[in-house]
């Protein structure tokens, strides 16, 4: 892809996806021991609990831990609406951010807290593969649609279409759709930058999340074996720092004892 095409595509994506204002996000990091989680996954693979060809990773186990932690801290499933209101989400469903050949995407794993663990791990691993392929397909389709944009721009400049009226008329529908999407998919997200070798990530929250769990590459720890940095980026208007740390502590404690608390 040529640079000009790439820039045009990115600009289009930003226009569609960027929120009106940047979310004021705080970010806090703790560390969890990696060995217990890895040992549990190795055991599950050795027992053949997962379908052949699927490989469960620590981030899939983190889905379970996040869902269990949400039972005690349910407000991290809340979602800030465009109108300024807060939508509470009863269903727990964690979104995993995907990087499909450089194109952003996500997959959702519904109810990872209560279902059998093997089922959750298998679904998470399978969905990542499926949604990665789908994300590429969607991106190609979007690029094709964007090529027709100049026609609409000309109609706007000639006064045939009025974009502000279009937005005003459609904003309630957009919010309704967002609300429905949040009810269906949940609002807690998970971003794992460990496979890319990153030891941390800094930035803002995505438009669709009130809180985003972050996972980085393991670091050498004070005890034997590496430690897994687990972070939480959260909307500073919705949550306080001590609430975020309490939620994150719960997640790291669950990851430290996976056999007893996550199985």
């Amino acid at each position, binding site marked *: 892809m040529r640079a000009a095409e790439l820039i045009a595509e990115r600009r289009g994506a930003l226009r569609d996806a960027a929120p009106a*204002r*940047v979310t*004021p*996000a*705080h*970010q*806090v*990091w*703790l*560390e969890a021991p990696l060995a217990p989680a890895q040992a549990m996954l190795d055991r599950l693979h050795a027992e053949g609990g997962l379908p052949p060809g699927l490989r469960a990773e620590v981030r899939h186990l983190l889905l379970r831990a996040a869902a269990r932690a949400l039972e005690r801290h*349910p*407000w991290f499933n*809340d979602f*800030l609406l465009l109108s*300024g*209101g*807060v939508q*509470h989400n009863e269903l727990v469903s964690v979104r995993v951010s995907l990087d499909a050949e450089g194109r952003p995407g996500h997959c959702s794993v519904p109810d990872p807290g209560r279902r059998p663990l093997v089922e959750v791990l298998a679904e998470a691993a399978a969905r990542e593969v499926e949604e990665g392929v789908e994300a590429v397909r969607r991106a190609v389709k979007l690029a094709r649609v964007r090529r027709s944009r100049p026609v609409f721009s000309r109609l706007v400049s000639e006064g045939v279409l009025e974009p502000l009226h279009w937005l005003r008329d459609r904003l309630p529908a957009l919010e309704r759709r967002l609300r429905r999407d949040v009810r269906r998919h949940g609002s807690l997200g998970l971003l794992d930058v460990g496979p890319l070798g990153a*030891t*941390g990530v*800094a930035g803002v929250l995505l438009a669709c999340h009130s809180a985003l769990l972050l996972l980085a590459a393991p*670091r050498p720890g*004070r005890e034997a074996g590496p430690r897994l*940095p687990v*972070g939480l980026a959260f909307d*500073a*208007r*919705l949550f*306080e*720092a*001590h609430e975020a*740390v*309490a939620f*994150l*502590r719960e997640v790291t404690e669950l990851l430290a004892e996976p056999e007893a608390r996550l199985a």
Partner: protein
Amino acid sequence: MDLVERVRARAELLRGARGRAAPTASLQILVRAGAWSDPSAGERLARLCLAAAEALGADPLFAARRTARLRVQAPAEPVLWVGPDGGRTWLRLGRAELGAGCQALAARLSAGDPRAEATAPAGLEILDLSTLGALEWRGALLGGAQGRLCLLAARPAPSGAQEAFGLALDFDAAWCEAGRAARFLAAVATALGAERVGCGPRS
């Protein structure tokens, strides 16, 4: 407070003027405890407050508050907003409280005092996340604040056996460059009598 009440209270809060964030940058250093090392978390935080107040004497910008895009209001005297235990409660410390001494301040911080939401005076925010085990922090400044100092949990220093604490400073990048923030952090560490052992969590 049950969940429904909590969500409703949050929605009410968001309708207020708290939402707009400053362009915030963060800087984090590790300081080896040294003379600052103390078994009591309250006393450690009290000493940090006194050190921050001393550093504010040299550079009061971090205690200022932005009242408009191009206007910053400096406080008449050093004022700190301290949130022990992760900011569950907030305490205002003025000249009188800071002058009372370390022991009295530690006792006051342990007692706690809910922050009054209605008032938003200028001041440096000091957030203690060390007792909760947080290792890294990056915050956004809201309500025109110019600085927030965050005390993080102890971790092994890269160059020695003695544990080192993390100190993170969130600052308004529109008004303060990174060098100035670094100098302020260095001044806090010097006032604490602590030794800087690195910049960032893994240097």
